[in-house]
Each structure stands twice: as structure tokens, then as C-alpha cells.
């Protein structure tokens, strides 16, 4: 039995080349990203329609709880002065979470494409660097690489670059490994059920051995860890690290 783990499908490639950047492709990643954005936005609109000052509904209480949780998360990790970063972190978390969990309905997670995480990591890296330059000035930022001794400079540059790379690869690796393991489990369970049911003699066994009966139910149990837990965890870790890095960059 062969297992094939493929990258995202490419639905349409524009038939012209743009210099340097290459061809414009509409891939599964982008389409599912738009679906994710649509889901989040519709959810926000649904949560915030018909808001009241008094005597609020459970829906509104939940929406307020979300906003307060986001506020507490960002302000708790970074301090009051980063209050305007709350929507960014919230968007990062929501997109990451919904992207991770959308694989549960059979769509391919946009986060199973390195482009997505690389894009986020680069944005975060630019924010970190901007914050560092804002805090210590451009000279202070450059000087920071020679701390504590000038010999350390190459390592400091390397660790600086490792930040976005590790950020992106950690998230991508976890989600991709979830997909790979899920694929393996489905295939392995199909083989196992075919072997098990093949033990039944005659035509019945021959027929039943083609029905991967073990694929029903068991992968759902495993997906509690590989999809739900990893999906929530990685979204949380990504946001946590983002806030931590930016808050660290703001320290003198």
C-alpha cells in the first residue's frame, strides 16, 4: 500500500510570469484561508449583532469574554502600552486556530503550508525588529548584536534570524506532522481491517476485507490529540511567543 502526502492543490495558475515573484497561483492554501477568514468574520458579526448595554444575551457575554480574554492576554504579557496590538494578536490566534481546526471538516489546513506560517513569522519578525529599533535607536539595535562581547556577533545574528524561522517551522511542522500521522493511521487501519476481515472465509470475507471498518471511529479518538490539542496548542504558542518576543524587544 502506498501513502502519498501531497502539498496543497493548485487550482489555477495565471498564465503569465511576474518578474522575480514568479507565477500567481490560486492554491488550496489561499482558498481555504479565505474560507477561514469568512468563518471568523461571520462569527464576529454574529457575535456582535444586536448588542445591548443592559440585560445581555449569552452570545454577547461570550463576545465580551473573548475581547476581555484577548485584552488580558496581550496586556498581561506585554503591558498596557501594547494595547493597540490586541486586534493583531487576536487575528493571529483566531486565524491560526480556525486554520488548524478546519482540517476536521476535511479541508486542507492553510497552516499545513509553510507559506502561511512564514508570512506570519516575517510579520512578527518585522514587528520585533521595529520595536527594538524604537526602543534602543538604530545604533542601539546594531550594538545589541555585539553584546555581551563582540565575538558573539555571528551567533547573535544567527539567533536573531532563528527567531522567525523557528516560529514558522514549529507551527508548520506540528500541523504537517498531524496530517502525515493521520494519513498513516488511516492507511494502517485500512490494512489492519482488511487483514482482520480477510480471516472470514469465503466471499463474505473477500467482500468485507475491502471495507476499512477500523477507519470508522478510531481516527477520531486520535485526532483529539493530533488535530484538536496540537491545533489549539500551536495557535496559543505562536501568539504567546509573538507577544513575548515583542515585549522583550521593548525592554531596555
Amino acid at each position, binding site marked *: 500500500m502506498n501513502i502519498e502526502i501531497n502539498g496543497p492543490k493548485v487550482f489555477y495558475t495565471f498564465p503569465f510570469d511576474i518578474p522575480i515573484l514568479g507565477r500567481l497561483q490560486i*492554491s488550496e492554501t489561499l482558498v481555504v484561508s479565505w474560507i477561514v477568514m469568512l468563518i471568523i468574520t461571520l462569527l464576529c*458579526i454574529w457575535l456582535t449583532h444586536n448588542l445591548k*448595554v443592559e440585560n445581555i444575551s449569552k452570545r454577547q457575554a461570550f463576545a465580551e469574554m473573548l475581547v476581555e480574554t484577548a485584552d488580558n492576554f496581550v496586556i498581561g504579557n506585554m503591558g498596557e502600552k501594547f494595547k493597540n496590538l490586541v486586534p493583531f494578536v487576536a487575528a493571529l490566534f483566531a486565524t491560526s486556530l480556525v486554520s488548524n481546526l478546519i482540517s476536521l471538516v476535511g479541508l486542507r489546513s492553510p497552516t499545513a503550508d509553510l507559506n502561511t506560517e512564514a508570512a506570519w513569522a516575517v510579520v512578527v519578525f518585522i514587528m520585533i525588529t521595529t520595536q527594538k529599533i524604537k526602543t534602543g535607536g538604530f545604533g542601539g539595535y546594531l550594538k545589541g548584536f555585539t553584546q555581551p562581547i563582540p565575538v558573539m556577533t555571528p551567533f547573535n545574528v544567527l539567533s536573531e534570524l532563528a527567531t522567525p524561522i523557528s516560529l514558522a517551522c514549529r507551527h508548520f511542522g506540528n500541523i504537517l506532522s498531524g496530517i502525515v500521522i493521520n494519513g498513516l493511521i488511516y492507511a494502517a487501519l485500512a490494512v489492519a481491517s482488511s487483514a482482520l476481515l480477510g480471516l472470514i472465509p469465503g466471499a463474505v470475507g473477500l467482500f468485507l476485507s475491502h471495507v476499512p471498518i477500523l477507519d470508522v471511529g478510531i481516527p477520531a479518538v486520535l485526532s483529539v490529540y493530533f488535530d484538536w490539542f496540537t491545533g489549539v496548542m500551536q495557535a496559543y504558542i505562536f501568539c504567546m511567543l509573538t507577544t513575548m518576543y515583542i515585549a522583550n524587544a521593548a525592554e531596555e
Partner: protein
Amino acid sequence: MAEHQELVTLIPWTFIAQILNLFIQMLLIKKFLFKPIREVLEKRKAKADSVISEATKTKEEAEAMKAEYEENIAAARDKASDILANAQKTATLKSEEIIKEASEAAISMKAKAERDIEQEKRKAVNEIKDEIGNMAMEIAGKVIEREISEEDHTKLIDEFIEKVGEV
């Protein structure tokens, strides 16, 4: 079968699109979740603040009113006791005055009565003296049978009265 991109690869346009998607998502979340919720939270806070400040104001007013009432009551009580004390004092003074006046009047009346009695007594005595004098003169005139001058007359009377007084 659709074409697949490689499993681990960076495609510039997808990369850029995902950056844009993240920022669009941020704006959407900001517009549709954070803005309305913050507005409603702000409104609720303002409302709670206004209710609290109104309650505080009302309480202050009530306390001021209470203090005023208490002050008024105390003032009224003071005034009442003042009035009472004044009235008592006035009454005492008045009664003392009345008693004094009455006793004075009594004394003066008594004095007057005594004076009157004295006067009456003296008058009576004088009348008696005159009567006696006249009688004596008549008797004497009859005795002596001659007219006496006025001067002698008086002299005689005085002598007589002195004698009578001695008696």
C-alpha cells in the same frame, strides 16, 4: 488529478497573499468584534459611572438635608427652651414685681390710713380744744363780766390749753 505544489516550499505570491490576509483579518476582527464590543463596554462603564455618581450625589444631598434638619430641630429645641426659660424668668419677675407693688401699695395705704387717723385725731383734739376754749371763754366772760381784748384772749386760751395739756 489536480496539480499539487510541493509539500515544503515557499511561493512568493502565496506568501504575500497570506501576509495581506493576516492584516485583512486583523482589520475585520477589529471592525466586527473589538470595536462594537469595546463601544458597548464603554457605554456600560459610562452608565455605571453615572449611576454611581448620581447615587453618591443623592446620598450627599440626603445627608446635607439630614444635617440641615437636625440643625433645625436642635435650633428649634434651643429656641423652645429659651422661650420657656424666658417665660419662666419673666413670670418670676412679674410675680415678684406684683408682690412688691402689692406690698408697697399695702404699706402706703397703711401709712395713709395712719396719717388720716392721726389727722382726724388731731382735728378732733383741735375741735375739742376750740370747744373747750370757747366754753372756757364764755364761762370766764360770764365770770369776769368784761370784754377781753383779742390778745388777752388768745393768751388766756394758750395758758388754758397748756394747763389742760399738763392735765
